[in-house]
């Protein structure tokens, strides 16, 4: 670890952890509150992207490439779930 890394990266890690943690919390709150199934699907999509963002922050801060395959896999097939649910959604709300 070089000098600049030791100076910068701890603060960057703290800031990114707080921001990404708040983002994940917001997505989970929207997932719990609802009101419709599609809102929950959107929130789970956001949660997945927040997770991959955390993996990328970890890779950049600690200088390793352990998660590269996982990142590529998430971006390749992460959309399948929301597309599937959106295709078969039914309207069960009273109107």
């Amino acid at each position: 670890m070089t000098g600049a890394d030791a100076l910068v990266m701890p603060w960057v890690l703290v800031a990114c952890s707080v921001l990404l943690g708040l983002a994940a919390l917001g997505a989970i709150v929207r997932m719990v509150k609802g009101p419709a199934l599609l809102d929950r699907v959107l929130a789970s999509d956001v949660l997945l992207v927040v997770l991959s963002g955390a993996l990328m922050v970890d890779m950049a801060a600690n200088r390793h490439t352990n998660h590269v395959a996982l990142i590529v896999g998430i971006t390749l097939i992460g959309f399948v779930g929301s597309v599937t649910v959106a295709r078969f959604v039914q309207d069960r709300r009273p109107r």
Partner: protein
Amino acid sequence: MTLDPSALDTVLTWVAGILMVAGSALSLSAAVGLLRFPDLITRMHAATKPQVLGSLLLLTAVGLQLRSWALVPLALVAWIFQLLTVPVSAHMVGRAGYRTKHLKDARLSVDELEDVVARLEREHAARRPGSGGADDGGADGERAGAPMLREDGS
């Protein structure tokens, strides 16, 4: 002007740190929009747009921190596929949300899809006499893909 290696190293590390914080802030903005916006369509707008830029910034930060050109194709693949797949899921969610009436009509300033859906439903009802015109609420969800799916079935 010559740039000695340690100064370049410091600059790259600072730039990567700024990019990481900015990318995380964009993820947070997506979550805030998801919480604060009133409507499925507006929430979809907030949930799908900032994230692509955020992941671009984070991938750039990874590339800068690792200082390796071998990582650039992988990052490019990851980002391009995100650009390709995020609009697909946003389109499907928006389509299903529109067809199942998950939007507040008063908030729309223009609704161009309404005429198309009405025309398709009229044509569909005309093609199958007897069952056409039955427009109760429960049929909405089933109608989500009906005009395209039933072409060969009936």
